[in-house]
């Protein structure tokens, strides 16, 4: 590999504000070699990193629909055009996962814009047999309770410091592990867990305060309201509540999110 090409790559990394001492130099050299068309470098990349790309695609979408994204990325890599965006601030495998995740998310968001929102009326179409299941709240009261809790939760989340909101989003909405969440936030996972517990308590207190003052609910009604929503979060979507900039869409949460809310509330 020509030294000039590697020196140029280092300069580009430095321009990005990278600490040269912390660069993944071996991966950067490999990327430079691949971009230079070196056969040995390319063979090494295919042997070590190409499987990572396709395994990541399968992990993102087990149905296999993300494989075309992986194919596209591999094609760009083969044409050497994509390697110049790698600056060595991460490992090559992490960078490949990030490229794939970026394209997957962008395609997912583009697809969602075209999907109709779920029918809110479907939540109200509950038979008489369902009455009384939601924490003792009647079906007539339940939509009101859900709306109250949703409004209170949205306000409480919006009042959180950005760091707490990011921690909630990483752990609850994006389902990262405590270790991953802590690493992104620069704190130990035990510290992260304590912060999450404290944030949950703050949210609960804030929600009860709003229900008491703005919803004018008694203590018994608050307990019934919280129990109702805890048992079945219904259309509450924490992922969207955590993004104040985004328009809030009422969407049925996934079963995993509901179960997490039930456990943590």
């Amino acid at each position: 590999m020509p030294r000039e090409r590697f020196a140029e790559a280092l300069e580009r990394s430095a321009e990005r504000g990278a600490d040269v001492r912390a660069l993944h130099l071996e991966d950067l050299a490999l990327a430079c070699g691949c971009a230079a068309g070196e056969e040995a470098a390319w063979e090494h990349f295919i042997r070590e990193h190409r499987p990572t790309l396709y395994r990541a695609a399968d992990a993102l979408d087990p149905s296999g629909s993300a494989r075309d994204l992986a194919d596209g990325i591999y094609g760009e890599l083969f044409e050497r055009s994509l390697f110049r965006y790698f600056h060595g601030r991460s490992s090559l495998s992490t960078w490949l996962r990030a490229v794939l995740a970026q394209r997957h998310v962008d395609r997912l968001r583009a697809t969602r814009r075209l999907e109709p929102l779920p029918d809110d009326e479907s939540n109200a179409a509950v038979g008489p047999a369902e009455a009384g299941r939601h924490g003792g709240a009647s079906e007539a009261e339940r939509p009101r309770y859900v709306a109250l809790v949703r409004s209170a939760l949205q306000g409480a989340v919006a009042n959180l410091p950005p760091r707490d909101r990011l921690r909630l989003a990483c752990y609850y909405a994006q389902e990262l592990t405590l270790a991953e969440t802590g690493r992104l936030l620069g704190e130990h996972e035990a510290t992260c867990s304590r912060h999450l517990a404290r944030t949950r308590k703050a949210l609960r207190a804030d929600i009860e305060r709003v229900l008491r003052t703005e919803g004018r609910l008694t203590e018994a009604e608050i307990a019934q309201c919280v129990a109702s929503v805890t048992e079945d979060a219904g259309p509450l979507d924490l992922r969207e509540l955590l993004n104040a900039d985004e328009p809030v869409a009422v969407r049925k949460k996934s079963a995993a999110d509901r179960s997490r809310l039930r456990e943590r509330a």
Partner: protein
Amino acid sequence: MNCLDAETLAAWFDGGLKGAALEDVRAHVAACDRCQMLLGAMGRTRAVVPAPVQERAPRRWLAWAIPLTAAATAIAVWVAIPEQRNVPVVTPATAPEEKREAPPPPAAPQPETRQETTAPAVPPPPVPRAQRNAAPLTTPSVRAAAPAAPAPTAPSQAPPPAAAPPPAERSASATFRAPLPEARVLDQQQRAAAAPAAPGDARGNDAGASTQAPLAETITVTGETPQGALIATLCGPRWRSAPSDVTGALTAGSSPSPNVCWVVGAGGAVRRSTNGQTWQRVPFPEMTDLSGVQASDARSATVTTADGRSFRTSDGGMTWERQ
């Protein structure tokens, strides 16, 4: 700030972002749905790469902490149990040795007990278990400032304590604690056979093999004995009964008061009576012949060895100091 590009996102995951750039990224992602979704997508692909192995710093302090702890424990035990650290351990090897030397059944067993303080090279005679168990056991503490000199060994009489091996070596200026002797009981025939051999016997001459008797064992006076006349000569006409456990020659005596008498003899035998009736065996640090004794009371006495050295005790024989 714009949404994260793939390179920045990867750098964030791998810890490649620092300072203001990192804070900007965190602040942006906290309010950006798309970037949060990127985090979720990255999380879902975590299984495709092996988890980073966190290298643990070598615990160098263990290299010295473990031996230091062991040494501290050993010192603590040594300090905490001073009475046991010089007590010889009875090893299984000594017991069979006694059995090998078992004498024939005594023709005329006597109630006397005999304690033989010998070097390990000479196997001691056996001890009847009943008599051995009946004897009291003490662990004396004897200090001596002189090295043990070679001297003939004479058995000293004492009720048999529990069996104990020979003592350890002592240096010339060492202060030591007398270990327990092995208790031996011989019948009259054995004692008769042992007595002539005592003066020239090399047993116990080794300075490193001196064996001491327990302190202040009460010895039963058996009445008039052949040595009674000798006692009367040494200590005065009032003293007619000799210590029953002394089979060797008694060489000197001193009676500073009517009820107190010290007698010494061959093989480091020192006996004392404080009531005029019974004798107590006083441990002496060396297995050497004693030639004289000058007592001032029941606790203080000066003993002279056959080679001219003097030892003094002021605590009834608990400790000895060379003069």
